[in-house]
Each structure stands twice: as C-alpha cells, then as structure tokens.
C-alpha cells in the first residue's frame, strides 16, 4: 500500500513542483515584507499562509495518489455536493457583504466556490470523455455549458463575478480539446464579445464587420448566417439596457477600468495606486520591505488581489519577468502533459485546470497593471488566501495524478 503510494508519487511529473515552490517562495517573501510593519490582523497573513501550507501540501499529495477510477466514479456525486456547498452560504449571514464564505466555527472561513472550480472541470471531463461526444454537432456543445452554468449562476449571485468567470472559462478550451468545431466555439463566444465591444462604437463596428467576414466565409446555410450575424448585432445594441440591471459595484469596477481617474477613491483608486507601486518599482525594485506604496498601505488588498504590485514595487520588473516565466513554463508543461496523457479524461482535466490557472494569472496580473477591470481574483501560489491555496495545491495534485504516465 505505502509502496504503491510512493510509486505513484515517484512516477508523477514532479518537475512542475519546482515552478510551484519557486512561485510560493516569491509569494511568501512578499507576504513577509507586508507583515513587517503591519499590526494586528493583517500581519498574520504571512503566518496564516504558512499555516495553510501544511494542509495544502497534504491535500496535494492526497489528490496525487487518489485513484483515477475513484475520481471518475464519484465525480457526479461530488458535483451535486459542491452545488449544495456553494448554496450553503446563502443560509448563513453575509460576510464582507457577500455570501462567499461559510463560517463553520473554525478560526478560518471556508469558501466552497474554490472547490467547485475543479469539480466542474472534472465533471466536464467525465461528461466529455464518457459520451464520446459528436462535438462536431453544434447542439451537442451546449450540454457541457449547462454543467458549468448552474454553479456559475449560483456563484454570480453570491455575488462573485471573478470566480463565476473562472468557472465558465474551462468550457471552451475543453470543448476545443475534444475536437469541437472552432467555428461553433466562435459562435458561442461571439455574443459575449458582442456585449463587451458594445462599450465603444468603433470597436463594436469593427467586431461586427469581423463577424460578418467569418460568417460569410464559413460554409453553412444562408439562413444560419443571417441569424448568427443579426443576433450578435442585436445583443450589442440591447446591452446598454442590460447594463442598467448590473449591481453598482460591478458597474463601478468595469467603468473604472475604462477610465481609472474617474473615481480616484473607488475601484479606480486601487488601480492608480497599484500602477504607481508597480511603476515606481522600476527594473530592480526598491528592495524587500522598502516599498513605500506597500509599506505605507497605499496599496489596497495588497496581500491578495494586488500582491503583484508588491512584487513589482519591492522586487522590480526583473522578478515580475521571472514570475511570468515560471507561470508560462508551468502552464506549457501542463499542456504538454495533457497532450501526452494516456486517456481523454485525464487530458481534459489537465487542460481544464490549466485554463483555470491561466485565467487567474491573466486576470490578476492585467488587473494589477490596469489592463482590465478590477476583479477580485487572486494569483495562484502567491496571493494570500486559505481556501484558494488549498484548492490550488489540490489542482496541482490532480495535474500530478492525471499527468502521470503509467508504466
């Protein structure tokens, strides 16, 4: 038994752990730097993270050695359980204005949507591999969407826009991975882009022309082409009406991305301070513990959402590049594991998890650098956050498990 487990661990593609622990180290350095001058609750971020590291590694090993068969067999059950879990906070009381966490009496709050992320991926993987989908058929693409959409909808109501986005994200790459027609995927993504581009008349016009060209050259019935085209135009036009139904904080976040100077103390304030921290760091940074923006608390939520600003300010562009290299090489290694995986189920799980990580990395970094609206998404292995650390390490465990080539 023990021997068997050891064998499993030994045969895992443990090379990716090098990246993971390098990233973890960068994160801990930054959390320590933040904790130097901070009093009380916030100073515990570093120690809490260390405290969570033990259970996180144990959970990683656990998900590394767990039988693939067992996972495959029980994932639908787990999917049901996680639907219940993410609904539970609604029966508790609001914490920080949302229903994201469950307070079950321990000193730490538990965020069930973190578990739901990878549960959705594995559920999708089973669904897509079991049914040997005729994914060339457009309609058959919609069922996987439903699987992701149910928990997404619940999480969206917590409300947690960032996590909802991450939950939906793996569906498209996974469909692509099982051979869905790229045009079909385009059709699915197109409406969202139509809505996003509706911000700006010129961008929207360009996008509509682009849709027109693609639809024109793709071989399908004329009737289909007309419907697809005008549906997108319609969506883009109706969007301003839907916009008014959004919650104010969501509107604020989106708006402040377009022009952060509009509201220097709302969401835009965070972006300005974050860019100031990053920019003033320069190439080599100001040195650990020397960042004035960080140490003087100009940076908001620096230990989680804006930790990249701390890295940028104190350790500089050099370490940012190194960090991005670590992330990129980790993800590329994962794609390669997915490519070489022995079966479709494993391959899909790896590509789904890869997508989740990529989503986190891109959204967090580009938010910090002021590219996209402020979304509360942490950076894997680096940001402080118990539930997220646990789920990140579990997902690494699954990569190790499903990326293992059985001898």
């Amino acid at each position, binding site marked *: 038994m023990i021997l068997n487990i050891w064998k499993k661990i030994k045969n895992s593609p443990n090379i990716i752990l090098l990246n993971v622990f390098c990233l973890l180290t960068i994160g801990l350095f930054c959390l320590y730097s933040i904790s130097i001058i901070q009093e009380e609750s916030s100073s515990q971020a570093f120690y809490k993270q260390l405290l969570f590291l033990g259970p996180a590694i144990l959970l990683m090993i656990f998900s590394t050695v767990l039988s*693939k*068969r067992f996972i*495959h067999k029980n994932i639908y059950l787990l999917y049901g359980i996680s639907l219940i879990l993410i609904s539970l906070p609604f029966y508790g009381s609001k914490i920080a204005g949302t229903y994201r966490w469950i307070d079950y009496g321990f000193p730490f709050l538990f965020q069930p949507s973190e578990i739901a992320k990878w549960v959705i991926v594995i559920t999708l993987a089973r669904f897509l*591999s*079991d049914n*040997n989908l005729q994914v060339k058929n457009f309609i058959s693409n919609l069922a996987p969407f439903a699987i992701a959409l149910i928990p997404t909808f619940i999480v969206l109501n917590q409300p947690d826009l960032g996590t909802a986005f991450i939950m939906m994200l793996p569906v498209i*790459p996974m469909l*692509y*991975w099982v*051979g869905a027609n790229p045009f079909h995927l385009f059709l699915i993504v197109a409406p969202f882009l139509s809505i996003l581009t509706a911000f700006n008349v010129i961008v929207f016009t360009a996008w509509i022309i682009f849709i027109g060209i693609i639809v024109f050259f793709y071989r399908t019935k004329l009737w289909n082409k007309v419907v697809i085209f005008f549906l997108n135009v319609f969506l883009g036009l109706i969007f301003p009406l839907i916009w008014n139904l959004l919650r104010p904080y969501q509107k604020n976040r989106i708006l402040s991305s377009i022009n952060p100077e509009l509201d220097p*103390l709302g969401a835009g304030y965070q972006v300005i*301070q974050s*860019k*100031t*921290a*990053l*920019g*003033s*760091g*320069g*190439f080599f940074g100001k040195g650990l513990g020397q960042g*004035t*923006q960080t140490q*003087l*608390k*100009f*940076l*908001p939520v620096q230990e989680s959402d804006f930790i990249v600003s701390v890295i*940028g300010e104190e350790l*500089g*562009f050099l370490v*940012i*590049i190194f960090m*991005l290299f670590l*992330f*990129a090489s980790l*993800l*590329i290694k994962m*794609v*390669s594991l*997915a*490519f*070489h*995986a*022995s*079966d*479709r*189920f*494993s*391959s899909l799980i790896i*590509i789904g998890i*890869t997508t989740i990580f*990529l989503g986190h*990395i*891109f959204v967090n*970094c*580009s938010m910090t*650098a*002021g*590219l996209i609206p402020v979304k509360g998404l942490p950076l894997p292995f680096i940001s402080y956050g118990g539930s997220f650390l646990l789920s990140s390490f579990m997902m690494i465990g699954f990569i190790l498990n499903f990326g293992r080539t059985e001898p």
Partner: protein
Amino acid sequence: MLKSPNSISKLQYWISILIILVFHLLLVYRFFQVQILDHDLYSKQADNNRIRATSIPSPRGLILDRNGEIIVDNYPTYILYGIDAEILNKNKNYEIINKTTGIDISILEKNYKNNYRNKFLPARLAKDLTISQLSRLEEEHHNLSGIIYKQFPERIFNQKIRASHVLGYLKEIDNEMLFSNATNNYQLGDLTGWTGIEKQYESTLKGKKGVSYHQVDAFGRETEKIEFENSILPIPGKNVYTSLDINLQSLIEKEFEGKTGVVIVSKPKTGEILSFLSSPDYKPDLFTGLVSNDDWKMIINDPNKPLLNRATNGIYPPGSIFKMVVLIELLERNIVSTEWSVLCTGEYEYFDSVHRCWDENGHGKINMKDALVQSCDIYFYEAVQKIKLDNLYLRAQEFGYGQESNIDLPNEMKGRMPNRDFMNKLYGKWGWSKGALLNIAIGQGEILSTPVQMANYTNLIATNGDTYPLNLVRTKINKLNRPQVELKNWQIIQDAMREVVIGEKGTGKLSDPKLPGLSIYGKTGTAENPHGEPHAWYITYGEKNNEMISIVVLIENGGSGGTYATPIARKIYNYYFNSNKSKLAKN
C-alpha cells in the same frame, strides 16, 4: 472507464501553447510599459503619495491682566477622528467612545456625517477631549478600529473671573471669513476670534502656522517626520496685555451677581479699562465645547440674553446723566448765567400737557447747580426752551452721543442722538414740536446711548475733555476729540457733580466711602423705559493724590440710580483707593 483514448492533434497542442505564450507576452509588455517606460512618472507619483505637507498649529497668545496674571491660557485637548476605511464596526466604536468619554452617540454620528470627506481621510468625531477622557478611551483601544486622535490646544480661563464679554470666544472659521481672509493663511476648521478681545486682537494672538513634512500612509496617518530644509516652524501668537485688573473684576462680578446691567471702571486720563462687566454673562468656556448641549440651549433661550454685550451693544436712554450736556450748552453760549433760577412746583405745564418733576413736592426756587445736584427736571424743561435742537445735537456729539466710542472691542453700537433732520424724518416736518425737547433735555425720548459711550463721556468731564477713548490694550491710539468748553465751565459742571456726592440733598451720596483725601464726583440717572422699572444709572469719578478712576454703573430696571447704582460705586472706590491701592498704582 477511461476508455476514450486521448486524441489530441499536434495542431491543438501548438495552438494551446501559443495562446499561453500570447497571454504571457501581453503581460510582459504591459509590465514593461508600466515599470520601465513610465517609471519616472510613477516614481514622482509615489513620492507625492508618500510625503505630505502638514501644518503645525501655532499656540495662540495668552491674554493677561495689568499685573501680568494670566486670564486666558492654552491647554492641550484632543480631537477624535474616525477613518471609514479602517472602521470595522461603527456602532461598537461609538458605544465604546460613549462609555468612556460620555459623548452622546447621536453627536458622534452627526459629527462624523458632517465631517466625512472620503473613506480614507479622517473625519472628526469629537473635539475637546480631556486627557482623562482620552486615557479611558485608550484602555479600550483594542476594541476600537479606525479611531485616531490629534492634540489640539484649547483655551482655558482663569477661574477667578468670567469677563466673558470682554474676553470673547473662539469659533471655527466659516466659509465667508475663509474667503475674505485669504491672505491670513486660515484653513477650514481653524479657530478664530469671534467676539471680544479674541476677535479684536486676532492678528496679534493668532501667530503663524508652521509646515512640516511627514511620511504618510494611505490613511493620512503620519508615520515618521522627514527633516526638510524648507519646513517652517510655527510662530506662536503674541500675548495680549490688557489693562484689566483681575481682582477688581472679580469683586465687581461678585457684587453684581444676579443683577442685569453694566459696570465699567476705567482711568479717565488714559481711557484704560480696569474692569468691564456686562451682566448676565456666560461661562467663558462655553464655546470650548466642554459645556454640554443643555447648558448651551439654556443660554441661547435665556430671556435675559446673556450673550448680548450690554456695554457695547445695549442701548439705553441716558436719563439725567445727559443733563451735563444741556448745562454746558447753556453756559458755552451764555444763554443763562449760573444764577438764573426756576421755580419748581413739581409740575410743568407745556401747552396742554403736564410734565412732572421726579420730586412731586417740587424743589422750590432752584439754580443751575442745585438743579443738577437734585436733578430737578423742571429746571431743564424751562432751560431747554432757550436751546436749538441742532446746537444741542452738536454739543452732545462732542461728548460722544450717537458716535462710536472707539473702544477696542468689535461690533459696538452707535446709539442715537436726535437732530432736526432726524425728528423730521421720524415724525414728519410738522409732527413734532419743541415739546419733544423737554424729554431730550432730561435724557429721555429719542436719545439712546451705550454704557461705553457714557464711560467716555464721564472721562471727558473728569479730564476737562483731554483723554483717550476707552481701551483694553495699550496701543497707539488717538485722543478723543476735545469738546470746546471753557475751563470755568468745566469747573462749574465738576463742582456740581462734586455736590451730587457730598451735598445735603445730593443724589449720589451713597457712593462716597468717605476715605481721607478722596474726592468723588458723580451724577445719577433714572431712565424711564417702556420695559418696566426705570434703568438705574450712575456715572462717577474719584480722585486721590492725582490717582483717578471713573465708574459707570447701569442696572437694567434697577429703579432709582441714586438708591441702587451708587452703593456699587462706593464698594469699588473703597476697594481701589483703600486696600489694593499700592498694588494697582504701579501700573
């Protein structure tokens, strides 16, 4: 299970890697842009974030009495601020502050709402916390969040006296003043003198704020001081040395307790004010915030108007103390001689109306001196027939009637001295007759004056017209305009006023403490008014060994001046020329 084979094409593999690379390269480019290309811009911005210029309050100058005793001092108080972004539980904070300092939760809430600017800037919750309040609050520090405090110097007052009307109070500068005073380096929230000496000598007392540079965090909290070459130290305000005598003031406040009116004691030769009381007054620390809301409401709603400075802003008919002006007019124009006399029967018929003397039995045949000594009204009714109103008006003006007294206190009233134009405007050209002069001759009717005007008037008589306006702080000031009166006529008036005090039938007898060498002069007044009992006036001056003081006493609705106002003057003379003379004479 796991039956479907992995069937990924090389194309899918490379496209996936390409996507990952594109996203990461996009990030690399963006970080390059922010961190390398815009490095200078953001470095500057970071410095702006970091260093903040803070003004250092300058301690306000003290107010002292003529012997150097401090009347108004500074002491440290604390201002409590809340920072929205750091406050975890507002109500809990409020409860703790309420429990430890006793400040109403509703007041905290109101202040916080009024002073809130944004979630990162401290909003003032309460001010004027004492050290003991603060230390009780500090004990609960672990239960508070986002509550900070700053030291702030506040006024504290000598407990011996109130003198609130003369000292005045400080108030937060309002928008109107802020913009009209742009050169004086005030900021919103600064205190400024609002009344009294505090206002009059604001520029002396205020000093100049300093500037220091601090490293601040995002919540505006100063973390460490940065030594900058161009930091400016505050210049403390200069002290104001007043001519007030704190002991005399204290005596008068005790004597006058419960009465409504004014007492002004000054030195006729220099105009220096030794004591200045407008009663009722208020505790001078009313405006420092140490007084509860209830006390404040009580004072605002008090029908006796304790906030009104009756000495500068109360206007009263002068009554008989005006009579000296009439006599001087008679003498200066040689209208009558001192021997000219009138038969007083107690009644005086003027056309179809009857005017009475205050003494119903009449004074009999009475000359000028006796008319003043016994304050016979009939004499003045008769005499004023020979006087033109406009001449009397000019004469009264020379003695300060209807004129600003130029006391160094803000917002004084001018009172009123009628002339023909005024009467024409008020009653129409044919609406008044010479009969109106009868009232004016005895200081009633249209004449209104303030007690400080009457103090100047007294000082003019005491010094043959050679004196300064009333003043609290000895600065370079111009003398009062000297009335055109011949020396012999001054002496006639002064003799008569001396007789008021020492004469058998003098109305001011009660004001003489009968100290050896002390000569006292005076004139009583009983000013009829529509608000009940007449106001009791007494103006007087006394001299001993070339040392002279003058006293003006006004008791609102106090009845007869001779009966009620004169004993107060006696106590002042007794105190000044007897017990403390050596100490006071020094100045």
